[in-house]
């Protein structure tokens, strides 16, 4: 089974702090993704990465950056956390074949106060 592991289930940070969310997958997947999930809005893509050191902006990249130095690890960085970044953050991965569903971690619930 594919395993996508997010390092924290819950985080509480203060406004202005730099926040790191970490994600590791164990299936040698080429693609990794960061989404945020808010009630009624579905999953919105922040960034995804299709290879080491390669990334593409998603629908809502503002206020976020990412890092992928190794194939199995994808980090989401909030440069200066704001209260409107309070959300559930979901990491996912898949292989680069055409019909390869995304596999998700269990999420990190971030609260910015």
């Amino acid at each position, binding site marked *: 089974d594919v395993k*996508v592991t997010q390092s924290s289930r819950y985080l509480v940070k203060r406004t202005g702090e730099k926040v790191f969310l970490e994600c590791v997958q164990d299936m040698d997947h080429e*693609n990794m*993704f960061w989404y945020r999930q808010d*009630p*009624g*809005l*579905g*999953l919105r*893509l922040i960034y*995804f990465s*299709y290879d080491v050191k390669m990334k*593409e902006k*998603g629908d809502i990249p503002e206020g976020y950056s990412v890092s992928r130095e190794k194939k199995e690890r994808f980090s989401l960085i909030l440069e200066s956390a704001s209260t409107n970044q309070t959300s559930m953050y*979901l990491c996912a991965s*898949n292989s680069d074949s*055409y*019909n390869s*569903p*995304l*596999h*998700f*971690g*269990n*999420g990190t619930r971030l609260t910015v106060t």
Partner: protein
Amino acid sequence: GESVGLHLPTLSVQEGDNSIINCAYSNSASDYFIWYKQESGKGPQFIIDIRSNMDKRQGQRVTVLLNKTVKHLSLQIAATQPGDSAVYFCAEKKGDSWGKLQFGAGTQVVVTP
């Protein structure tokens, strides 16, 4: 069907009955679709997928139907069980890039004894 606004549509189903969850998609050129199940406090879990060159695909207790004419996708769950209580949402891949995977907001399924 898919939700608009903050409140998810809810489907109440009696244990043992069949469930049908609907999804309308937006792009007639979308050619890959995925259904996910999300239980409270967990990440989305892959259920079943279908490509646009198919009308129907079956898994264990689940069937996905694709009607390209009206851009409609449905998930049928046979003999619904209490463990099926969750939010279900569909995703459509709108182009070649995995960055173009769009998720619906979901339907809450509540299984009653």
